[in-house]
């Protein structure tokens, strides 16, 4: 073909603003989301370093603390309230603006349309609005640092009455908490717009031959994540509206009678239920965990097949497992509330359903190992991160089985065991999925290759570092160390674990320092990396049929036709060890 059969009438916009800022191109929007997430992850990580520093140096007076927070860190000494506000903002920024944003809105935006053979998302204008709404939410969230009283203290779950009763409950609980809820409500709107786009695109814009069961597993996880986001964020939005009204309009949805806070009786609220918030929040909050992790599972499945040069073991089982995880995710929110005084029979039901999630999770892990089994494994950096994802997913998943049992949760609840668990499975595993995606797709996104040597150094240091931070947390939790406290130095029964905390803090510094390698690699490679070929990994999906980076409408006016499944590697008798999805049907030799 010398010229496309139907020339496309779509042109790339030429002005700077339309091309890079208010772009309608899903690829530009994907990169915008990626960098928003990159900014957020470093902001969130900095906050965690301050917390880890304070935990092992509770008496330290740091002069620049006093400059940054003249009241909350008077004389340079971090107050417990400041510690709580750092914790709240760390959790919120990481969960919403990193884990929810990058794997789904970043990579999903860029690669979903290309992988299913579409020219763009179904609603490009909505897509642009979704990004800028997310950006606005981030601005409002960060603004909470700078208002009177500072950032809120109530954690990323914002439990009332602390989050609902206003300034009286703490310095950050005035304007800071109001901005927090406002930001989350805006974020809900952005996520709903994104979910509508993802679902409509996947359902309706698949190219000829791209049957559902021919979609790469990445697309399946983006689809299921979008459905989770659609149903979950709508409920969080409702909860946020009610909470903000409790704060500013004097209603009593969540605030009970007889509150006694800071030596004062709260007389203007009565009859509300803090537990109502917990139910609404966790109905969103548990699916949110899968929103963070499912795209990472998709990327991992995709990469294990590519770099083991084997088809995904049990493709259909993988698809059904993702659907099952998504479905069950809506039935288990109560396991976050075992300690709320719930009826033990309810707790048992939630517990059994929670254990059920172990089944599809085990199917996925089994199939990942099955995919690797007997493969010719290429240990690229992205493959190492995908393998790291499997490791972290198993480690974090196993501790979840402990926490899912009410009798054990009685003890573990609100200890560092929980912190270790969710950081492993939701935080670090998802971040490894993002690293894997970054190293794998960077050549397509920026037209250049990343440095593999730096990548591997970064991988090994990070892998060691995160295990060094989060494995001891399980131990510290077993000892009974509560979470959310800023200082354990005067707690007798915890004297023995202070050195463990010191070790975790050093590991946190170490891991954070290792990320500098990644940042250098990323920005150096964007400018100076060697030019990327069309298909550097000999992979099969549609994004590897177009130039790196792809033209404005992805396929330059051609309508791709798909003839093969996404993971046809090492087919006996085939010319190469991979068959691209667009290869003619004859690429697979007839049997017999």
């Amino acid at each position, binding site marked *: 073909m010398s010229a*496309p059969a139907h020339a496309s009438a779509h042109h790339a916009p030429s002005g700077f603003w339309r091309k890079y800022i208010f772009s309608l191109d899903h690829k530009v929007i994907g990169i915008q989301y990626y960098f928003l997430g990159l900014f957020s992850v470093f902001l969130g990580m900095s906050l965690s370093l301050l917390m880890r520093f304070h935990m092992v140096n509770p008496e330290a007076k740091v002069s620049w603390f006093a400059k940054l927070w003249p009241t909350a860190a008077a004389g340079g000494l971090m107050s417990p309230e400041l510690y709580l506000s750092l914790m709240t903002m760390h959790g919120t920024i990481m969960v919403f603006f990193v884990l929810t944003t990058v794997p789904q809105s970043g990579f999903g935006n860029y690669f979903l349309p290309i992988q299913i053979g579409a020219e763009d998302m179904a609603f490009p204008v909505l897509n642009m609005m979704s990004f800028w709404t997310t950006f606005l939410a981030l601005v409002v969230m960060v603004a909470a640092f700078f208002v009177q009283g500072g950032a809120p203290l109530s954690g990323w779950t914002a439990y009332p009455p602390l989050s609902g009763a206003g300034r009286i409950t703490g310095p950050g609980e005035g304007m800071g908490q109001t901005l927090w809820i406002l930001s989350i409500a805006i974020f809900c709107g952005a996520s709903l717009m994104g*979910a509508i786009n993802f679902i409509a695109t996947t359902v*309706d814009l698949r190219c000829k031959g*791209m049957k559902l069961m021919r979609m790469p597993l990445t697309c399946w996880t983006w689809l299921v994540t979008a459905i989770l986001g659609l149903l979950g964020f709508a409920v969080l939005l409702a909860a946020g509206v009610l909470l903000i009204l409790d704060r500013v309009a004097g209603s009593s949805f969540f605030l009970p009678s007889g509150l006694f806070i800071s030596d004062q009786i709260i007389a203007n609220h009565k009859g509300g239920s803090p537990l*109502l918030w917990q139910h609404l929040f966790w109905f969103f909050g548990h699916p949110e965990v899968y929103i963070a992790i499912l795209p990472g599972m998709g990327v991992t499945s995709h990469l294990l097949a590519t770099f083991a040069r084997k088809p995904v073991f049990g493709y259909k089982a993988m698809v059904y497992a993702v659907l099952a995880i998504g479905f069950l995710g809506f039935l288990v929110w109560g396991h976050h509330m075992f300690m709320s005084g719930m009826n033990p029979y309810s707790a048992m039901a939630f517990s059994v359903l929670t254990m059920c999630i172990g089944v599809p999770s085990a199917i996925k892990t089994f199939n990942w190992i099955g995919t690797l089994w007997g493969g010719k494994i290429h240990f690229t950096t992205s493959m190492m991160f995908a393998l790291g994802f499997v490791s972290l997913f198993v480690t974090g998943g196993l501790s979840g089985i402990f926490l899912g049992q009410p009798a054990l949760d009685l003890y573990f609840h609100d200890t560092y065991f929980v912190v270790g668990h969710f950081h492993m499975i939701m935080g670090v595993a998802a971040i490894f999925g993002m690293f894997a995606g970054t190293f794998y797709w960077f050549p397509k996104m920026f037209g250049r290759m990343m440095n593999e040597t730096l990548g591997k150094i970064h991988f090994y240091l990070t892998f060691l570092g995160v295990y060094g931070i989060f494995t001891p947390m399980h131990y510290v939790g077993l000892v009974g160390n509560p979470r959310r406290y800023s200082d354990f130095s005067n707690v007798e029964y915890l004297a023995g674990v202070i050195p463990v905390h010191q070790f975790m803090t050093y590991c946190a510094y170490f891991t954070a320092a290792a990320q500098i390698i990644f940042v250098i690699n990323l920005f150096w490679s964007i400018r100076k990396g060697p030019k990327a070929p069309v298909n550097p990994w000999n992979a099969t999906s549609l994004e590897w049929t177009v130039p790196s980076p792809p033209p404005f409408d992805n396929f*330059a*006016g051609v309508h791709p036709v798909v003839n093969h499944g996404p993971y046809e590697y090492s087919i006996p008798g085939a010319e190469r060890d991979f068959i691209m999805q667009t290869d003619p049907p004859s690429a697979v030799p007839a049997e017999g």
Partner: protein
Amino acid sequence: MGMAGSFTHEYIQGPPPPPIEGGWGDDGGGNDGRGSSRRASFTGLWVLLAASTMLFAAFTSAMVVRRGLSDDWASTPKPPILFVNTAVLLLSSAALDMARRALKAGARERFNTWWTTGTVLGFLFLGGQTLAWLQLKDAGVFISTNPSSSFFYVLTAAHAFHLLGGVSALLYVDVQALRLRLGPAKRTAIDVSAIFWHFLDGLWLYLMVLFYVWG
């Protein structure tokens, strides 16, 4: 990589590609590319309705729980104008459907009349809701007065917020229609906004039942 050579950053101007039937990954066709095709618009609409349903389901469950939990629930007096508003909203839905029928029959003039009627009735409903709020306010019933009134304001406001989006869509179609710019591509906008409006209609009936039975 035989295909790679055909990709070029230089685009050749030409007529847009003919619409291709099929898609959905079937063997019969493919999608016709960038932008909101009619089918994607409908999918987007159904997905949006699912999200709105979840929002109101969350409010409803909060209301049922909150009502059952405490003994401070006192029924809010409902302004009778709500029944007038309900009638106006139902009529606007009916008008929109008359308009769609007229368009199917090729009667553009009749379409314009009915659609404009539906749009005006839509704005009238919003005005009526505002009157209902003002009447409540004059009766001394505010959002913080009672959990019942809190939910009344929240649910009517959330519904009105949806309606603002709805009337904007109706108005857009109406302006296009009156300026004689109603090409085949706008049929999707007509159908999508009408279905969305019917949904808001049904939602309002549900809310009325909720207010009068549990409110």
